[in-house]
């Protein structure tokens, strides 16, 4: 018993150490992202003063100089950069003059809507993808197998916004099953439950659309991984022991086949907001993607910088979480470090 505890302690220690170094590296990475984004915005023609002047309906040179002075835009580039990074470390992403709101509030306000889409689509894609992958691997020439191949090709080649519009045409305009846009119907009355049902109803098509990309990736990868695992020696041993196929597939093989799928799912974090931009644009979904798009069109610098930083943060946290998930599924991961 103490020995097991010792091993456990050792594992936790290596894990903590690895997490510590990864976190430091993540912070450096985020700093680099901040510097790059800020420099890029700085290098572009026009600045915040122009945005403010535009929202005021124009301003003369004197007022422009005044605005630049007020917001420190006349200071040297490095000073501005330093001020910005210092602020970010205090969780202050600046103030949006386009929305008249602090950027942090703006992002937090839009985040839940995007989370509904992304988490919904990821869970659906993972569950359906793994199930399809396993079924098709057990019967490589069956209908499911062809379905997986077809899905993978479709998911790769079909532009996601087009898939979204096709869903719209079929399920809301022709069949009238789902609303065409937005996240909720303001006229819906009743308690929290009615509200929840309303949002769920609105989110079906956007989630399905976003899911179509992931599902293609996961089902194909799971099929490949499962085929490989099913051909390995330990599966043959398990079969030779007289275990039922069900036990071999779901207890022995699936655990190992699922690791690469988790890794891939983790990699999708970097594409989360990018995918959301297009899907949200199709369904007028009030999430981060729409916010990003609007702020880019409006040249709202603080918001653009904020969202770029936030999405880098999501990727970094996502990578840490993926690592954690892999360690839970596969104890061999991290043993090397």
């Amino acid at each position: 018993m103490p020995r097991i505890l010792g091993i456990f302690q050792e594992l936790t220690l290596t894990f903590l150490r690895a997490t510590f170094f990864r976190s430091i590296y993540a912070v450096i990475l985020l700093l680099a992202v901040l510097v790059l984004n800020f420099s890029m915005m700085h290098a572009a023609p026009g600045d915040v003063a122009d945005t403010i002047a535009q929202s005021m309906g124009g301003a003369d040179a004197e007022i422009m100089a005044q605005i630049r002075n007020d917001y420190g835009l006349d200071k040297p580039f490095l000073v501005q950069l330093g001020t910005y990074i210092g602020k970010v470390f205090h969780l202050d992403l600046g103030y949006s003059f386009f929305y008249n709101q602090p950027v942090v509030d703006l992002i937090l306000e839009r985040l839940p809507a995007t989370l509904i889409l992304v988490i919904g689509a990821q869970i659906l894609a993972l569950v359906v993808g793994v199930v399809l992958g396993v079924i098709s691997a057990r019967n490589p020439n069956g209908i499911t197998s062809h379905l997986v191949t077809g899905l993978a090709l479709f998911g790769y080649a079909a532009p996601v916004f087009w898939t979204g519009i096709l869903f719209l045409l079929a399920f809301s305009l022709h069949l009238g099953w789902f609303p065409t846009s937005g996240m909720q119907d303001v006229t819906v009355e009743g308690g929290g439950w009615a509200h929840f049902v309303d949002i769920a109803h609105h989110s079906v098509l956007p989630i399905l659309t976003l899911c179509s990309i992931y599902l293609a990736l996961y089902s194909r990868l799971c099929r490949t991984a499962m085929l490989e695992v099913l051909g390995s020696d330990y599966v043959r041993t398990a079969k030779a022991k007289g275990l039922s196929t069900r036990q071999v597939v779901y207890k022995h093989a699936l655990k190992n086949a699922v690791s690469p799928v988790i890794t891939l799912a983790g990699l999708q974090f970097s594409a989360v907001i990018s995918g959301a931009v297009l899907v949200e644009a199709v369904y007028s979904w009030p999430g981060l993607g729409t916010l990003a798009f609007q702020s880019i069109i409006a040249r709202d610098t603080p918001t653009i910088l904020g969202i770029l930083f936030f999405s880098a943060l999501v990727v970094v946290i996502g990578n840490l979480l993926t690592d954690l998930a892999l360690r839970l599924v596969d104890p061999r991961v991290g043993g090397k470090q």
Partner: protein
Amino acid sequence: MSGNLQKTETAQDIIDAAQHPMSEAWGMFRRDHAAMLALFVLLLVLIAGVAGPFVYPGDPFEMVWAPFTPPGEDGYVFGTDYLGRDLLTMLIYGARVSIAIGLAAALITVVIGITVGALAGFYKGWVEELLMRLTEFFQVLPTLLFSMVIVALFGATLPMITLAIGIVSWPPVARITRAEFLRIRELEYVTAARSSGVSDWKIMSRVILPNALPPIIVQAALMVGSAILFEAGLSFLGLTDPNVVSWGQIIGSNRQYILDSSYTVTIPGIAIFVTVLAISLVGDGLNDALNPKLRKR
């Protein structure tokens, strides 16, 4: 004596029978029906883009007939859009933009990716560490969002759009190149080249690179498809050169009118879908043809 002669003859026969690796790969590829069909479709799209404007002249921005004319009516094969523009003309011009941007952006990713991956895999040590950190850094950036910002800030011109796509898409190419270089640099023929005093540059470009190319070619083919999708996404959002027509932009500008004319959205989408699908199938075919280990499958 005669036995010896016999032997040399057989060796010569083998040499005669041996094909150039590329023609052998082509032989493999030719037997892959899906890939051949896909290649044929790609050629059609290419011909439509290059020769289309001469065969079917017209200005993609010009109003030629009543808006919302359904496909096939009044001599307009694909009908007209909400501004009465001929959809077929728009598709032809869109093919040019999609293919040009797809190829150019893929070229950028391949050039950056091979350079970074080759240096990292060849020199190892701190060079590799530094370049791979750089690659990771670019993977953290949100691809579409980042290129949207570049296009919006620095101008929506075709070269800028191409650059914006290329700059965010190269990390996979760099990773594959590095892995191949790491593997090949340990092989005997590289050691032989090294010991006979061949310069680093020549070893990289003449000895390792040709042997590392097959997976890179496959990846590059897929990159063309991704770049076409990427451009479609950007132009769907309106972040495109206003002076040219592209497939994504046709969908984006017509999507408000899908109740009146769903074909203005479905047809350009099919064009993108079929083109990217064909590229992906050709990529699969290349993968099988260029990878001798898979040939027995």
